[in-house]
């Protein structure tokens, strides 16, 4: 049994060990005015909002000390990295595929208005109803209205990044509607009163012992209990989830999904998955509501041949994921007879407006960048304080949310710029370039607002370096400082400069400068 279970996972939010009622006190979600006096229907997530997370360095410093988390993350990222490399290398035209993937998404992005109108027209022609949501609140309002119109108080869900982005589950909860996660990892996260730490394997930070403990403790509170003799074998844990969720699938009248791809020229939506929970949600209920970011389109059906090769190999490292579902509006007599699509902007048009940053919208949410990232591997997804963690999160979240909060200002710096992410990205997003571009934007903003110590110091350095004699004298002076303190490293700079030494030790200047040495030896 892991001793660290509740310590660090939730970024300072104690995971509420007891589930059920009352755990939601203090949750401000969606509109930020949710009173949580009612009995909760679903397990409460950690309190607080992601946007209020501490800046990356503070969160990372805490999480890096969690040994369980680091061991889990190291195992997971290394395993999946190796699988991806193997199946990507199998295809001789992998680089051409990546190029095509990037070009397809660029064509889409550069003519997004055209393709959105085409998609809408085709969806309507095929019997689907289309809704447009400018932001999270608007999307949640539309979804809640649609669910309430069915006179139900629960929905089943396919794992979807965009519903996390708009914090839909908590908005539904506040409206008295229970949203049940049906992906195994999302179920672990939901029952664990936790937040996802990876977009592909949301419970990547949990090991099998922790999962067993969560299932035994929580399943019985929300439906079919886990078998009492449940052990930590992944196959048995998956079987417990199958039994727990089958009941919910058969009962559900409404399902909510995202979409991996929306084909503009036919009005077809595509969901890529592994477990079959997606097929259950897309097939059994009477009503299907799919929420999708406006960047998730592809122009034509034929473009799927590129995307459906790139995505599974880049994400789970398989030649193909077990199940891919495509549906084109309503199919009479087969599946949901009422189909809705909610097209969500929520900052995407803002990302599109920056020609140097817009390539982030090519992202197909495969998570290859995370799995290749040495920083993500060590701190895990929770450190990023954003639904999209890792390298893509560091460029996408600040752009989507608008670089106003402390966490978003810190994210573009949460990278060593090593470039591993750009090497693996299936749609060739130049992540390091965009990181540097965003850093520049943030620094320019700071410079505009504050005169600043940095600017002063740079001025001094410029003055000193402009003349050889000045520089030589300064070198000598520095040597004196070393001899006086007798220390090899300076661990803390004084005043505001201590920010620089917070994360590094500064080597003291040498006892004699190069100039003095040269003079002595050759002079």
């Amino acid at each position, binding site marked *: 049994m892991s001793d660290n279970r509740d310590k660090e996972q939730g970024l300072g939010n104690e995971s509420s060990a007891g589930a059920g009622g009352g755990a939601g006190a203090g949750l401000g979600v969606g509109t930020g005015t949710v009173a949580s006096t009612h009995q909760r229907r679903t397990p409460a997530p950690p309190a607080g909002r992601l946007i209020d997370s501490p800046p990356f360095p503070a969160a990372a410093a805490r999480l890096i000390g969690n040994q369980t988390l680091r061991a*889990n993350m190291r195992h997971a990222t290394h*395993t*999946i990295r190796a699988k991806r490399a193997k199946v990507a290398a199998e295809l001789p035209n992998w680089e051409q595929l990546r*190029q*095509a993937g990037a*070009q397809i998404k660029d*064509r889409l992005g*550069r*003519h*997004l208005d055209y393709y*959105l*109108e085409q998609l809408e027209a085709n969806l309507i022609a095929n019997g689907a109803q289309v809704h447009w949501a*400018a932001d999270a609140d*608007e999307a949640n309002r539309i979804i809640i209205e649609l669910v309430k119109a069915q006179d139900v108080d629960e929905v089943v869900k396919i794992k979807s990044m965009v519903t996390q982005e708009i914090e839909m589950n908590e908005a539904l909860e506040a409206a008295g509607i229970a949203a049940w996660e049906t992906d*195994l990892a999302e179920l672990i996260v939901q029952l664990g009163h936790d937040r996802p730490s990876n977009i592909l*394997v949301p*419970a990547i930070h*949990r090991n099998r012992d922790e999962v067993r403990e969560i299932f035994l403790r929580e399943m019985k509170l929300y439906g079919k209990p886990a078998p009492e003799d449940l052990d930590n074998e*992944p*196959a048995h844990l*998956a*079987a417990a*989830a*199958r039994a727990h*969720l089958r009941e919910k699938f*058969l009962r559900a009248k409404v399902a909510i999904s995202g979409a991996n791809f929306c084909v503009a020229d*036919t009005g*077809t939506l595509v969901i890529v998955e*592994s477990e*079959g*929970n997606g097929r*259950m949600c*897309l097939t*059994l209920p009477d009503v299907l509501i799919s929420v999708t970011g*406006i960047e998730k389109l592809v122009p034509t*059906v*034929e473009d*799927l*041949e590129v995307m459906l*090769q790139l995505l599974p190999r880049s994400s*789970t490292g398989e*030649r*193909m994921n*077990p199940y*891919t*579902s*495509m*549906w*084109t509006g309503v*199919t009479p*007599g*087969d*599946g949901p007879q009422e189909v809705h699509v909610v*097209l969500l*902007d929520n900052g995407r*048009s803002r990302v*599109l*407006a920056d*020609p140097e940053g*817009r390539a982030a919208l090519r992202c197909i949410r495969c998570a290859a960048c995370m799995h290749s990232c040495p920083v993500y591997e060590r701190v895990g997804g929770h450190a990023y304080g954003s639904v999209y963690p890792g390298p893509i999160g560091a460029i996408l979240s600040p752009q989507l949310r608008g670089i106003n909060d402390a966490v978003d200002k810190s994210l573009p710096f949460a990278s060593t710029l090593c470039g591993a992410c750009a090497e693996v990205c299936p749609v060739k997003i130049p992540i390091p370039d965009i990181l540097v571009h965003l850093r520049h934007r943030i620094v320019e903003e700071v410079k505009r607002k504050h005169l600043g110590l940095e600017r002063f110091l740079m001025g001094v350095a410029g003055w000193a370096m402009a003349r050889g004699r000045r520089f030589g004298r300064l070198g000598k002076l520095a040597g004196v400082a070393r001899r006086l303190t007798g220390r090899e490293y300076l661990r803390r700079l004084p005043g505001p400069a201590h920010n620089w030494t917070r994360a590094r030790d500064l080597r003291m200047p040498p006892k004699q400068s190069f100039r003095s040495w040269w003079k002595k030896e050759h002079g």
Partner: protein
Amino acid sequence: MAETTGKERILAAVRAALSDVTVDDPVLDSPIDWQYGQATAVEQVLALFIERVEDYKAVVLSAATAAEIPQLIADCLQQAQATTVVVPPGLEPAWTTTAELDGLRILRDDPPLDKLELDGVSAVITAAAVGMAETGTIALDHRADQGRRIISLLPDTHICIIRRDQICTDVPQATARLAAAIRDKQPITWISGPSATSDIELSRVEGVHGPRNLYVLIAP
């Protein structure tokens, strides 16, 4: 709330963001260097298909003649310990004759069966639309010989019969073959092995919600 305003606002924001794009035709503005619909260089298509499907822990059987199919289906059903079987309305009736003789209950999904009824059915037999060798994938386009999506989902065993000429090299060729069905508004399901998850410590577990046993029967 007038929904048109939401649409207009979003489209206006998108258009404003794209003021640097001056060529209106997407194809002229953004070329894509890709030859669509090409067969990939695969030497032994059938052998590769079998190898890749088996790689997902599915069982693959081959019928030398059409006459062998009913017996092979009955063998699969017996191995899976199936007692009830659902078949789509358009499935070849001869295929289930041996299973019927074995005393299995065969339910035709016509009129459509209720979901609770289907939840208690142990197996399903369907035809297929397209096979992909490189990825070991079967695609259903849910026409009459494959039936509604729900029937190939709830039973724990899926027996899928695919003809040799339906098996192509890879995803591009398959997408080209399926495009007509998609444009006909048919739902499409791609199946690559049995239901699986790697959500716990990334160790692969076959069988979560979809059928836990997949038999692929290759017909002449």
